[in-house]
């Protein structure tokens, strides 16, 4: 099963731990022999399974490869850790922090501006309300003044009128009373004249007494 060519193919990239550059495929097998490897025969057999290291075990479980892997894992992972913790992560963290600080500052400024706007709006509304109440009071005052003036004038006119009415009434009453006093005289004169025509002269006094008697 193991052909020379096949063993060489598996061997190709290998360097067998020794200084000999075994990368030359044609010299792979002789190089092994030159190492004085006592297991050279079985070596070739195991390489049929692709094993670069001597044991024929499953490669991930081959302890011969452990030292190299651990060494290089320590070197590479250590370098990664140092570079991450010292350089890369602080830098990215700084970028994020910067941006966050800037955004926060902008938000704070915007908030302050908003508060200013709110204050301005409140002041405006207060002034507006004041002006409105001022206007109301002025209107009220004016209306009251006009009403008072009107009422005073009306009262003056009314008193004037009523005084005139009462004066007129008094004059009427006086005229009427005067007229009424003349009625008795007229009646007495008329009665005297009538009686004088009928029965001859009578004294005005008696006529007057008679009229007064009738009137009662």
């Amino acid at each position: 099963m193991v052909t020379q060519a096949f063993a060489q193919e598996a061997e190709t990239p290998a360097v067998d731990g020794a200084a000999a550059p075994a990368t030359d495929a044609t010299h792979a097998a002789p190089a092994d022999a030159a190492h004085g490897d006592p297991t050279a025969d079985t070596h070739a057999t195991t390489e049929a399974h692709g094993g670069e290291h001597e044991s024929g075990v499953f490669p991930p479980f081959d302890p011969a490869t452990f030292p190299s892997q651990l060494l290089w894992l320590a070197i590479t992972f250590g370098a990664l850790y140092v570079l991450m913790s010292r350089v890369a992560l602080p830098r990215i963290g700084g970028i994020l922090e910067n941006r966050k600080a800037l955004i926060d500052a902008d938000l704070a400024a915007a908030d302050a501006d908003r508060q200013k706007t709110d204050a301005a709006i409140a002041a405006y509304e207060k002034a507006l309300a004041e002006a409105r109440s001022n206007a109301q009071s002025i209107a009220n005052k004016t209306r009251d003044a006009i009403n008072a003036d009107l009422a005073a004038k009306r009262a003056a006119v009314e008193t004037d009128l009523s005084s005139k009415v009462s004066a007129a009434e008094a004059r009427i009453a006086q005229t009427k009373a005067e007229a009424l006093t003349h009625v008795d005289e007229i009646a007495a004169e008329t009665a005297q004249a009538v009686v004088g025509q009928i029965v001859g002269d009578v004294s005005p006094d008696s006529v007057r007494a008679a009229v007064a008697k009738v009137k009662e």
Partner: protein
Amino acid sequence: MAGTDPIHQFVIQDLFPLFTIGGDGTEGSGLHFAFTNSALFMVITVATIVVFLLATTGSKKLVPTRGQLTAELLYEFVAGMVRSSAGTAGMKFFPLVFSLFTFILFANMFGLVPYFFTVTSHIIVTFALSMLVFLTVIIYGFIKNGPKFLKLFVPAGVPGYILPIVTPIEVISFLSRPISLSVRLFGNILAGHITLKVFTGFAVMMIGALGALGWFGAILPILMAIALTGLEFLVGAVQAYVFAVLTCMYLNDAIHPSH
């Protein structure tokens, strides 16, 4: 054969060797260190994350560009996760959680590119990451709370006679966290990649074996592989998220041990 072998993709290949500690100089003895394909993709993963985050945030724009916005979203996503799970006190672990999340996320995503190696498909990597979290929790928990950290195993409001049962359960569940955390990630990624490879390999084998008829027969497995690729992107993102969220919750235990 190697082209359709579903295991081949997980093979660690030495790109160039570094050094060996101990051993007698023979092959396979001692602790062998090398720059491997896995290491290469770890480097690519980390380099991509770092370059992306640094390049997109360089100008620090107030109004972000698309790239900067992506970086910011990633940051805020993880920060929100940490804050909601572990509270503001947990933010000191934010770099750790962020590193874990991005590392796993980018490693998973790179792993889905054909011919790319998947770093998180190896248990040792996921286990190391979960042990990092586990040890951080224990050490920080004891430093911050002292012996009160052990209250974690004694849930408040539980009657005294149940405690002998509850406390061992709590201890076992606490100790199994690094295992479950690592195996969950490893298992999901490994299984997903094997499944993908099996379906695509099946298509290749059909074409190879049946010729023209094989092209027709390959449609179904290819459709399946396309659907699975979408699923694997989801799985890769979800597993990175799950790992990060569980990390946050475990860290929350260290910060506030009393339930």
